[in-house]
């Protein structure tokens, strides 16, 4: 660029970039306009239909797009994943149940399954339990909105963001060096001269990772449960008090039964999030040091090691594990709606 007369690549580049951007914008606007146009035409045509065809046509017009998207986005990939799980690593040879055999007999994958189970049981229970306790404590407090907002705040942070924060909390340095991790520094302040390298201490590290999930999900559990507690009619609690129930008994025999369905919904929702928890493990340990979980192993088999057979088999296992939870969750949600 210093020599006048030579072509100026930067201008060409910038021009190219603007040109590309303009074309992309034009394309997206065109696509949106075209989509709206087609919708208008379809609605108009369906609106004109009379007689015997009118009702089925209306159903098709309203249901069609949703069904189509569901097919493209969910059903077809599901079937294809199921099919791929029966093929070899690059999808060229039929191997039957070999991938499932691998998943249940390989030592490292067994560890993954055990970890996933631990996550599934412990993280949702702790998050919901803590949420319930906090909801009760905060319920009659002055300025409860402030406390609730503070506790709910981590919910606004992505799991990756939360993981990075906790990675710093768990950061460890050898003896003689100044600690930069909060947890290690606390341990040192309490007189523990050489705290361990937290992320390497098995099986503690898995629970330390769960703490991130609990930190994020407790706020959600608290807000939903607090709303349910407030929805309990005052007459009922008053009647119970008149009957002599108080404190713990009031909680176990009145509050908990009244908000049972909400507790179950919160529990299952957190469970489903937990089963899919891949960001925390991926960000904090990359699945090393015995902390791997199913979702992350599935990703690394499919997209790091390019073994679609193994990856798909793990995806199917994960799907089958989530399925009953989702079904139960929906049933409970319906029940709750029925009550209201």
């Amino acid at each position, binding site marked *: 660029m210093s020599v006048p007369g*030579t072509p100026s690549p930067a201008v060409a*580049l910038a021009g190219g970039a603007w040109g590309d951007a303009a074309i992309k914008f034009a394309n997206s606007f065109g696509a949106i306009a075209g989509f709206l146009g087609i919708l208008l035409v379809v609605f108009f045509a369906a609106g004109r239909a009379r007689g015997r065809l009118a009702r089925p046509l209306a159903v098709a017009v309203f249901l069609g797009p949703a069904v189509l998207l569901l097919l493209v986005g969910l059903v077809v990939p599901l079937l294809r994943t199921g099919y791929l799980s029966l093929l070899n690593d690059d999808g060229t040879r039929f191997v039957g149940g070999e991938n499932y055999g691998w998943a249940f007999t390989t030592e490292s994958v067994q560890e993954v399954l055990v970890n996933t189970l631990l996550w599934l049981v412990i993280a949702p229970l702790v998050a919901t339990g803590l949420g319930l306790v906090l909801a009760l404590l905060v319920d009659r407090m002055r300025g409860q909105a402030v406390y609730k907002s503070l506790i709910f705040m981590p919910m606004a942070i992505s799991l990756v963001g939360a993981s990075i924060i906790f990675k710093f909390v768990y950061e*460890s340095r050898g003896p003689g060096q100044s600690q930069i991790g909060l947890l290690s520094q606390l341990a040192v302040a309490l007189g523990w001269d050489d705290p361990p*390298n937290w992320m390497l201490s098995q099986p503690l590290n898995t629970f330390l990772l769960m703490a991130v999930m609990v930190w994020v999900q407790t706020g959600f559990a608290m807000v939903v449960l607090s709303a349910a507690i407030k929805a309990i009619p005052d007459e009922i609690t008053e009647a119970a008090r008149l009957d002599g129930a108080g404190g713990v008994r009031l909680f176990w025999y009145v509050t908990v039964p009244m908000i049972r369905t909400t507790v179950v919904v919160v529990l299952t929702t957190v469970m489903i999030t937990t089963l899919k928890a891949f960001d925390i493990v*991926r960000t904090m340990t990359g699945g*090393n040091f015995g902390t791997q979980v199913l979702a992350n192993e599935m990703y690394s088999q499919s997209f790091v090691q390019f073994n679609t057979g193994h990856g798909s088999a793990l995806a199917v296992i994960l799907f089958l594990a989530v399925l009953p939870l989702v079904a139960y969750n929906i049933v409970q949600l319906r029940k709750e709606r029925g009550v209201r």
Partner: protein
Amino acid sequence: MTPNPTAPSKSSRRRLVAAPALLAALALTAACSNSSGGSGDGGGGAQTLSGDCAKYQPYAGHSGTTVTMFASILSPESDNLEKSWAEFGKCTGIKISYEGSNDFESQLPVRVAGGNAPDFAIIPQPGLLAQMVKSSKVVKPPAQTVANQDKWSPVWKTYGSVNGTFYAAPMSANMKSLVWYSPKTFKAAGYEVPKTWADLMALSDRIAKAGGGKPWCGGIASGTATGWPATDWLEEVVLGTYGGDVYDQWVGHQVKFSDEKITAAMKTVADWMQNPAWVNGGYGDVKSIATTTFQDAGAPILTGKCLMLQQASFYKAQWPKDTKIGPDGDIFAFHLPAVNPAIASPVEGGGEFLTAFASRPEVQAVQNYLSSSDWASSRVKTATGWVSANQGVDKSLYTDPIDRLSADALTDPGATFRFDASDMMPAAVGSGQEWKSLTAWFAEGQSIQKTAADIDAAWPQ
């Protein structure tokens, strides 16, 4: 696994720098843009280029065509690529439409399988190249590209080949056999840069006994790719102990990980990077290597808590911006000596290969140009941080001391150059079990026997 783990960090660090630079560039070019003659914008067919464009005559005749390229190199580094061929594009009228993606490695197979292959892909792993060739969509290069290959040492041709057929010409090369150190600290303590492995070990011992900083620091954490720096350590030692033949057999699994040659090499690595008295300067014990990110690993060298770090040439991007890098600056690097003095100058490295998925004449013209020394020189001139092992590139073009050091080692005809082994092994091992097992070896103190056996068990049948 070379560019993938480094790409995000490098680009995010440099993005901050790039904005003002881009503004300056725009201002400059706005000032002199009028003078650029559109010498190549004429119609197609028998087109003659003159003046500055004359050197592009062999590639002329395809004006108005577009060639697509897909790679993992992101802006701002990809901007340097685009600048390096801007003049070519201007003169010949061939537009190279470049697209970079973080998900290159997983997206490319999807696109190729879906019949939506780009004209070119820049593939950094021979393993991925082999996978693409298997899909039979890769097109063999034209005669000129094959001829241009003579400027590279013959071993490079084998890395661009699959089953003996040459497919992809290398574009860049990087050097992994480097040890980063601080010339200032060395000078103050009276240490000499070691020339042999024995010297290196003696020096490490001396540093450890002197108190103060530990001789070595290291970090192998890298998200999902955690463990890759440890594969490099093992590869350096295997290559430096047994030479190229055993190394090649190891890559091909004729020599297994549990072979006593490889377990002996692992022992050498353990005596070096798992020696409690020698590591991990500035971070903690041996295990802390597993939780230290490779980006952070070298930072204690600046404070003297650690004196040496074995890491590739691209580690240069990790030093703070005001660090003086050079033979008498804050930081410099030396060539890691061979474990076995009988092995001549072992160089472990990586590279990127230009793979074509189309054979249109304009695609071949671009392929010919990008495999030529002319393009390599143009890219080296554009910005630092890019090294070619092309013998036709004038060494004086390298303005950066690390680039120069790498280029000297990579083009040395007497050197034993080998490509990163984990990039060539099947993905299930090279970017899977080997990472995991070596990480467990460092983090959990797992035995060498178990580590080797686990990796062998994961090798696809």
